[in-house]
């Protein structure tokens, strides 16, 4: 025991007491103050003192067309460009004290028509669950969410109706997206009006 104590004595006297601020708290401060968001995304803090709970609003634009190897795919992609433009989609973020070991909990607060978002607001985004790593940050999650609006993925459906429509009949899918955003009901499901 004595040995250990003498080690501290010999150590550089400049070592100062370390912060009482929790590691999670510092990390969230760092993530938030270094967010690099495009103009299509805005954060809102219902209580500005509480950095662990906030909202993110995404107003998707056209996005950029990806150059795909097959002309046919490219055409299909082109059809879907900017399909969610004009909408404002709000997500709630809840960060716990075990961040960044645990990912933030993210939910869509509206009922929206999207292949990767279910009617309860659960979002299918790999980095929110199985592929989360502490090196990722809030910026990665937000960029990932925005990407879902530019490139919905019919292969990982949470809203099966929407996913089926998207892969089978793109025109109908586009039409459904637009009318859902105006707050209409599709196949018996009432969607929220999300026009910005």
């Amino acid at each position, binding site marked *: *025991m*004595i*040995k*250990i*104590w*003498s*080690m*501290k*004595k010999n*150590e550089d*006297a400049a*070592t*100062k*007491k*370390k*912060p*009482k*601020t*929790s*590691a999670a*708290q*510092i*990390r969230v*401060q*760092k993530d*938030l*103050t*270094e*967010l690099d*968001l495009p103009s299509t995304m*805005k*954060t*809102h*803090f219902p209580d*500005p*003192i509480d*950095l662990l709970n906030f909202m993110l609003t995404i107003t998707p634009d056209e996005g950029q067309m990806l150059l795909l190897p097959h002309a046919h795919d490219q055409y299909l992609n082109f059809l879907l460009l900017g399909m969610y433009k004009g909408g404002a989609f709000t997500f709630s973020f809840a960060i716990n*004290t*075990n961040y960044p*070991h645990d990912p933030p909990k993210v939910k869509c607060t509206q009922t929206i028509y999207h292949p*990767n978002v*279910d009617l*309860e607001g*659960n*979002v*299918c985004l*790999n980095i*929110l*669950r*199985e592929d*989360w*790593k*502490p*090196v990722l940050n809030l910026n990665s999650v937000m960029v990932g969410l925005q990407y879902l609006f530019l490139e919905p993925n019919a292969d*990982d*459906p*949470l809203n*099966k109706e929407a996913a089926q429509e998207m892969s089978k009949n793109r025109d109908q899918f586009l039409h459904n997206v637009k009318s859902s955003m105006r707050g209409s009901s599709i196949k018996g499901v009432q969607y929220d009006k999300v026009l910005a």
Partner: protein
Amino acid sequence: MAFSQCDHDWEGRYYHIDQILDAPGPRTDEGFMAGDGVKDFLRNQSKILVIGAGGLGCEILANLALTGFKDIHVIDMDTIDISNLNRQFLFRQKDVAEFIMNRVPGVKVTPYFGKIQDKDDDYYLQFNLVICGLDSIEARRWINATLVNLVDPENPESLKPLIDGGTEGFKGQARVILPTITSCYECSLDMLNKPTAFPICTIANTPRLPEHCIEWASVLEWPRVYGDKKMDTDNPDDITWLYTIAAARAKEFKIEGVTWSLTQGVVKNIIPAIASTNAIIAASCCNEAFKIATSSAAYLNNYFMLIGTEGIYSYTFEHEKKKNCPVCGGDAVSLAVKPDMTLEELIEMLTERQDIQIKNPSLSTPTKQLYLRAPPQLEEATRPNLLKTVSELIPGGGEVTVTAGTLPFSLSLDITFT
């Protein structure tokens, strides 16, 4: 040696341990006080804290008591589950202390049932050593940060060695953390395996495993049915509800294997514990505690891992301190400022200092934000603070955490007033 032999010590009790303590050996430290000095410290002065009285904790308690530690405190918050009894051989929480005291006379075990977070710095300061046998990452991070914060350069005894044991099935690890001197628990956080999580779309659409059905019940159905009500994974009723939902789901998809105990295992993230792995890791932890307390031999530097999945493989290495560790790394700077200095002037001073090299810093105290650069709403909310004086914002001075894109992680300021 009247002082090291109380009434309870039977004849020859310390015969074997005294072989080690009575004379220095080739590997003993210079500071080793062979004979009465070290025995007195071990048996009459040292006070040790064990966190966790589960499978690992029970082994640790037994080993400590038999090695000659006499004043042992133990904290555990878990409720007892019948599935734990195969390895928690001290039977029941309320019995743990009692059991050891009966079994090993002369040992005083003081239990505390509750959260480690209930206790303050003064509580932790009374111990010489802390041993963790926990299954929670969150609790480990907390105790690690607490012990790092406890270190006061002016008071060497504020340095509490932390010995952390952990097991997962056939795998385990034991490590010695000397807060602020060696790498800490937070330094190695990115070495952890991530918990198994299934893609939410698999759970929702194409379940193939019983676990998928259980996650469907807990991740999707629970919040849908109960809204914000929190699931209590220690409440058998909640587990039964999840089990019923998961079993129905499994039937629908013709998946076999959903049981009540698997449901509990999945939602509580229980990894099967192997009694012998616990025994090995506990033994290693207690050896280190003994060596550190007595200086009778070189202690572990600083990470021992055991992999028993295929044969027995173990490896010992020095885990390095992470420079930008949010708990033990980063720089700390003492700043004496005039009480009438405004926050804006303080920030300007920070950005001008050559030794800090900081651009666009954001500042906060442990309880409030002082000034955040972004996002715009928070910048606006904290902007009025810029014109306030530092003494008005942090009366009495204290700790300020600074983050900035130019810093590897963060900088800690200790503000005092001139």
